[in-house]
Every structure is written in C-alpha cells, then in structure tokens.
C-alpha cells in the first residue's frame, strides 16, 4: 500500500476539527491551539515545523493521548480521543502509539534489550526486542545499560522501544534535538525505515527545517494555527540532509 493508495481510503489516521487548547484562564490564558482542522492519512511520515510555542508539541501530545483538548474534536481512526476516559487513553497509548522523546527517557536500570522488553511485555503482538533493536542497528549493544550508550544509541533504543509493539502511529518530539548531525541522521534513517516497513503513521516535530525534505507531508505551525501544509513531490533520503 503506497501513501497514494492510503489517501483514497475513507478514514484518515487522525482527524481534528476546531481543535483548541487553552492553558490557564482569564488574563493568564495561553492559547496553544486556536482551532486546528487536520486530516492525516494512514502511513505517512509527517514533519511538523514551527517556532517554539506555535502549538506543534501541544498537537502531538493531544494526538498521543497525553493531553486533552479544551475544545474541538480529535479522532484516531473511528475512536474519538477527545471523548475518551483516562483509562481509554492509557489503553490507546498502549496499543497504538509509539513515542520518541528529545531526551530518550530510557529506564537507567534496564539494559537496551530490557528497555524494549518493558514494552513488548504489555503489547498485543509485538516483535522481539532483538528484532526491534536490529531494525535500528543495535543488535550488538543488547545488554548495555543506558549509561554505557552514546546519545545516538540511546535514542535508537528509544525508537526500538517505540516500534517494538508495531504501533499504528509513531510520535517523535524533537528526536534529534539533543544529537549532533551525524548521529541525528542515523536516527532519522531509523525512523524512515520503520515508517516504511511497518507502515506506521509517523509525526516528527523538529526545529530543523532541513528535516522536512524527508517527509511525505510538511505542516508548518504558527501561533496555534496551521500556516501551511505541503506535500513533497520527491522525498530526500536522510543521508542527503544536513544541518
């Protein structure tokens, strides 16, 4: 199934209507999202661009079931996330969502393999930890603790942990933010490969406009609204990127 095929299928992976998020109230109210309407087809790799405070992280968190919208609707396939209970959201994250964070968030007390197993143990039909770590090129570092791994390696363990459950969506918040460019490229390659082989809809937040070239679709945020949505005719390979 190519992205083009998927676009023709009726239900998008994510759909938002009038999505609004306000932090605080009264004079201190901060509008993080001001009515976002968005349809994201299954299987695409989407890059979210925009300055700090433009609302992209808020959107990612709401799509990932970490945060609730103040107003509007969010749908994952045919499940309305904006109406889901905390328990339902936990279950949603557990079944469908893989997260990758800027600061990896690995369990320091578990080895690479065990960090991945942490997730495979509670997933429905996971791949093995070895398989997941193989996909990110860490088959030789299975029994190392986070303290023994470089930043790039830790981030790839985090990706392996996110993909081992065969997630429907992969949400990455600044996955290369803490890495140098060579390491960052390895991480992006891993993301691309996972997107292609698993068909997981992948959202990547980045400050780095260069990364946009590898996306199917690029959404630019400004001031809580979507400024621009464009699709790349030709997608660059991460190895062609530079920053």
């Amino acid at each position, binding site marked *: 199934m190519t992205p083009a095929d998927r676009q023709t299928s009726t239900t998008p992976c994510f759909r938002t209507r009038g999505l609004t998020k306000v932090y605080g109230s009264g004079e201190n109210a901060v509008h993080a999202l001001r009515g976002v309407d968005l349809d994201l087809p299954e299987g695409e790799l989407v890059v979210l661009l925009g300055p700090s405070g433009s609302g992209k992280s808020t959107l990612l968190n709401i799509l990932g079931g970490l945060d609730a919208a103040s107003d509007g609707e969010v749908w994952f396939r045919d499940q309305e996330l904006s109406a889901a209970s905390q328990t339902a959201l936990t279950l*949603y994250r*557990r079944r469908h969502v893989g997260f990758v964070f800027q600061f990896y968030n690995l369990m320091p007390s*578990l080895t690479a393999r065990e960090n991945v197993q942490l997730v495979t143990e509670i997933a429905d039909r996971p791949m093995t930890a070895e398989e997941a770590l193989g996909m990110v090129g860490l088959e030789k570092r299975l029994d190392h603790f986070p303290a023994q791994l470089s930043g790039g390696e830790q981030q790839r363990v985090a990706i392996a942990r996110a993909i081992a459950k065969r997630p429907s969506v992969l949400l990455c918040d600044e996955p290369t933010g803490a890495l140098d460019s060579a390491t960052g490229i390895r991480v992006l390659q891993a993301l691309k490969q996972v997107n292609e082989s698993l068909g997981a809809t992948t959202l990547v937040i980045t400050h780095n406009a260069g990364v946009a070239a590898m996306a199917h679709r690029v959404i630019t945020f400004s001031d809580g609204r979507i400024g621009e949505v464009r699709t790349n005719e030709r997608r660059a390979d991460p190895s062609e990127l530079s920053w």
Partner: protein
Amino acid sequence: MTWLLRLLSPLDRKLVRDLWAMKGQALAIACVIAGGVSVFLISAGMLDSLTETRRAYYERYRFADIWAPVVRAPDALAADIRRIEGVQAAETRIRAPLLFDIPGMAEPASGEVISLPDGREPSVNQLYLMDGRLPRPGQRGEAVVIDSFAAAHGLEIGDTLSATIRGGRSDLTVVGRALSPEHVYTIAPGQIVPDPRLYGVIWMSRDALGEAVDQDGAFNEAVVRLMPGHDAAPVIDRLDRLLDPYGAPGAYGRADQISDAFVSSEIEQLSTMGRILPPIFLAVAAFLVNVVLSRLVATERAEIGLMKAFGYRDRDVMAHYLKFAGLIGVLGLGLGGAAGIWLGRLMAGLYTDYYHFPFLVFTANPRVYLLALAITVLAVGGGAILAARRAALLHPAIAMQPPPPPDYSRTAGMGLTRWSLLDQPSRMILRRMVRWPGRAGFTLAGVAMSGALLVGTLYFTDAMEAMVSSYFDQSNRQDVTVSFVEPRQRSAFHEVSRLPGVLAAEPFRSVAVRLRYGPAEERAAMMGVPRGAALSRMIGADGQGVETPPGGLVVSRDLAETLGIEAGDRIAVEITEGRRPELELPVAAVVTTLIGSGVQMELGDLNALMGEGAAVSGAHLVADADAVDRLYTALKSAPGVAGVSLQSVAERNFRALMDESMGVAIWLYTGFAGLIAIGVIYNSVRISLSESAHEFATLRVLGFTRAEVSYILLGEIGFLTLIALPAGGLLGTGLAWYFAEAMSSDLFRLPFVIHPATYGFAAAVILVTTALSGLIVRARLDHFDLVAVLKARE
C-alpha cells in the same frame, strides 16, 4: 506570611519554601524525632522526678535504713542500739497485724498497726500528716490512718474505726490522715498490687498499742537510720548479735523493705526504657534526615551550582542545608518536648494512684532538657552533615550540568537480576535495591526496628498474662488465705476449714530462714506445704505442682541463682524463729517462680525440723461463691486470725493495674513504633517517587496503567516490608528477651513468652502503615503532569 518572608534573606526564603514543599516528609521526620525526644523526656524526666521525690521524701521524713524485727525485747536496748557505730538515729516500736471491720463491707480488710513514740515525733520514719494530728499520749483510742485507706472508705477525722488487734477488738477514733515513707507502695505482705480498700495501716501511741498487744515496756521492731555514707552491713551484723537473744529473725536493709523495693524496681524499669528506646528513634531520625537531605541536594544540583557561581561560599551552601535539617530538628524537638511533658504529667498522675508520695510532680531538671537538645542536635546534625558537605563540595561548573544517568552496569550482584523469568517492572524494583543497597538496607532495618518495638512492647501484655495465669491459676488457686497471729496447732486449721462457705482447705507453715551456700547468704521465706498440695504450691516446668521429696527443699530460681546453687547441692539453712535450728538440707529441685521467691518444704518435715508438733501458720481456702459473705463475717471474728488476703480480688486488682498503666504505656509505645514505620516508609516511597518521577511518567506515556506504575513505585517498599516482617519479629523477640532479663527483679520475673497474636498484631500494624503511606504517595501519581515531566531533562 509574605511580609514575613520578605524579612528573610533570599536564601532563607528559599529554605522556607523548600521546607513547605516537603512538608509531608519534614513532618514525618519531625515526628520520629519527637518520638525519641518524648520517650526520652518521659523516661528520663519520670526517672528524675521519682528519684528526686523519693530522695527528698526519705530525707525529710527520715526514712529508715535498717529494720530489725524481734519477738519481744526490752525497751532498755534502745540505748544500746543508738550506740552502735554508724547509727544516726534509732527508734524501737511495736508493729502488729490487725483486721479491720468496716461497716457495710463484707470482705475483711487487713493491715498493720505501728506505734508512735509518746509525746514526740519519731526520729525515724516520720509521718507526713495530711490532716488532723498525731495521737495524744495517754489517749487510748486514737489512731492516725494511712490516707489511701481513709480515702477508700471515706474515713474523716472524728470517725470511728473498728479493728481487731491480736484478738482484741478496739474502737478507734480517727485523729489524723497521713502518708509514710515506709508505705509509698502500700501493699499487703505477699501481694503484688496494692488494694487501698482491703489493706490499711494505722498508727497509735506506743502506750496504747503496748497495752493492746501485751508489749508493755518492750518492743518488737527497731528501725535505724544510718550516718550519711555509712555502710549498712556492719550495723546489721551488730544488730543481729545484739538482738539474737530476743528472737530476731535478722535485720534487713532497704532492698528488702517491700515498699522501697517496688519503688526501686519501677525506677529500674524506667531507666531501662530510657536506655533502649530513644537511641532507636534518633538513629532512625538521623538516617531519614540523611536520605531526605541527600535527595534535596541531588534535586538542587543546578541551584547549588548557580549559588556558587554567584559567589556564595562553600560554608554558606553547607549552612543552608544544615539549617534545613535544623528546622526539622527544632520542629521535632518542639513536638517531642510538648508531647513528652504532657505525657510525663499524665504518667506522674498514674504513678500517684499507686505510689503515695506527698507530692509527685513531673519535673525534669534542666540537665534532662539539655540532654534532649544535645541528642537531637547530634542525631539531626549527624544525619545532615554528609549531605550538606556533598552540597558544599559540588563544583559549580559540574553542578550546573545535568547529572549523568545512574550507572547500573557496574553494580555488584547485578547478575542476579538478569534472571530471565523476571518481568521488566520487577527487574527495575530489584535493581534499584541492588544499586542502592545501603538505602534499601536501612529502610528494611527501620521497618524491622519498628516491628521489633511493637513486638517488644506488646510482649509485656503476654508476659503479664502468663504471670497472672501462672500465679493465680496454677500456683495460688485458693480464694482466701488466712494467716494466724502466731503458729497454732493443727486443730486451729480444722476449725478454719469448718467455717461456713469453705469448700476446700490446705494448711501451711511459713518461717523466716537464712540460706547459706559458701560465702553467699540470703534471707528468705520457707513454706511448709502438705504433700500433694493442690491450692498453693510451687509449679515445675511441666505446669504441675512440684512434689517435695522427704527432707528436701524446692528453691525458686532467682534465689538459687543468687546463692549459686542447683538441684543436688546441700545448703545451710538457719530457721530464724522458734527453736532456731541450724540445718544442712539437700536442694531437691529448682523451679521458676514468676512472682515472689522462696523455699518450699514438706509441711511434716518442716514441723519435725522445728520440733514443734503439727503447727500451722495459716490456711488456704477455696470458698463457695454463694456463701463467701458468711465466710468473711466468720473470719472477721475468728480468734487468732492476723490477716486475710483475698486472691480473687488480688487477681482483679492485678488485671486492673495491667489495663490501666500497662495499657497506656503499651498504646503509647505502639504509637511510637507506628511513627517510626510511617517516617521510614513514607519517606522511602516519597523519595522513590521524586527520584524516578521521570521514569514513572515515561511508563505512563508508554501505556502503563496507574496500577502497573504503582507496582513499580510501591513494589520496593512492599518487598522490603515483607522481608522486614520476619526480621522485625526476630529482633522483637530479642528485645522481649532483653526486657524479660532487664526488668525482672526480686519482686517478679517476666516470663519470656510471646503469643503468636502479638507477632500478628505487630505485622498488621506495619502492613497497614505501609499500605497507608503507599496510598498517600500513590495519590500523587494520579496527578502527574506527564507532559511537564517529559519536557524537563531529569
């Protein structure tokens, strides 16, 4: 509040806010400190109050150092006694048992009457007159009554009191109410709990009493006060030689004076408690201060770096964190001081119910308060200094960088945790413990200590119960014990056994003896008990009465230990009354008695040794509950009866005492143990949460449910608690054993028995505490701001 904060330096403002943010933990630690301080204050303060009150009372009212009973000695000897070297003052007096007849009261109350010198205050054992006056010389029918007995019967000055003294009935007018240093613990001979209703003391003028008991111009007890610092032994020796021709069973010092023995035993117990408990609390507090402060320093690494970058000196930083601990210490000291004084007063109130001093105020002297302050400073400072030093030594440039993730790769014992059957959450729990074994170890030790404290204090109930059941249900099954004024022929026993309401009766002969083995010598009471005695007898290890083989002795364990004898030895026995035979007798058995001590022999053998025919000193009776009042009435007018003691009432009194004073103490200590458990467990969980907040948030994001994350948060403390339970049980057993050893005295021995329910209760308290502390902290998991936690890097 805000204006107050503005007065402080910025660093102190930070301190106040930090403390406020950690109020739960700070309070938990303060409570543990308070526990230590208050136990210390209660025991040291009570010890002070009791010791000082006793000293002052004894001094002011010229409490005797030596008592020298005789059968009958001429008054002229008084001058000889006063001339003995080391004697500061001496009095001769008459002392006799009596029976009271209280209108409207069925039970016979017994007691003793003591003579007062005519027309002057005694120079030894003066009375503390609370009301009224002393008897006037020449006034036959006047008596001063001990305050407790007067209060129990509502006796007022001018009331009439009927008493039978040596078979003769007197109607006495109450002219005064008094306390006496000899009767601080006013207890009937052979009893363990005072009963002011059934036992009283009165004082009469020497003339009046001398006539009543046929001791005109004679005395039957000399009381002696020694020169300050003079040794009692040589004086006792001289007295014994001087009084030997007058039927003296032997003089004795304060250690054998029953009231003072009880007061001393209480003081000894207080000091044991004061030695053991406060150090436990303060060690726990020191540890808690250390972990909490270490955690705070770790969290505030960047701030510390910044402070130093701004030019704060190492000692400013160190002082800042020491102040943090200091404030917690001050809070604990304040809480503990207030609780200690309050509880101390409560306890002093309880004491005055049983120990009759003219005054007993809970007043610890300044030294005690200073000591409480010093040990708190030591505990808190000791706990804080390492963490504060670590903060001071942080290099600013390094401090401002985030700390590296904890390295688990090189921890010893990690291999164990690779076990493949483990799920990852359990592995995380296990690895935290392996990575920080000191902390896990102390949490375990703290919880175990709390459990031990529970078992150790609850043990007292078990021991007391065992003591009561052994003493009353096995050793002394009679309802009533009747003692005769002097040994009487067997026929007197038969008369008593035929009184109305008597279902069964058993005679006994009791004589005072001196036991010698090598250089060791002890005074003791020897009981002649009939073969096959079923009511009052010594009980062997099998719970059955010990059969005394012909001519042999059964000796109580404590007596055997003091003398250094065991079964099979032959000891010298000097009977200090009657013909005063000196014998050498075999020890047939040594048995453990829980209350009292002594020697037992077959009644017929004893009679034979005394060469006195079939004489008895009294009888133990089983009474028909429905006819007991008739028995009491008959006993009140029975000739030759010196005293009546009611075992069933004694058992009731004993249980009441247990419920009242032990009850309060035990619940107090249970509460204190709970404080330790809460302090340790709450802080441990709270620190886990703050250290691993990031991990827990990540797990929630990864789709772990709250229950699953709670498992990781609480699994460690749960696991440690489960290990701590048996460890605490074991420690508690040791503590109970120590208490049994340390608190046993000549008066009673605490049996070393712990009921399974005691362990169960202790475990339940710990488990409930763990669960509650866990739930309180877990509630914070529910309010985690996942997004915020993940945005921050550690």
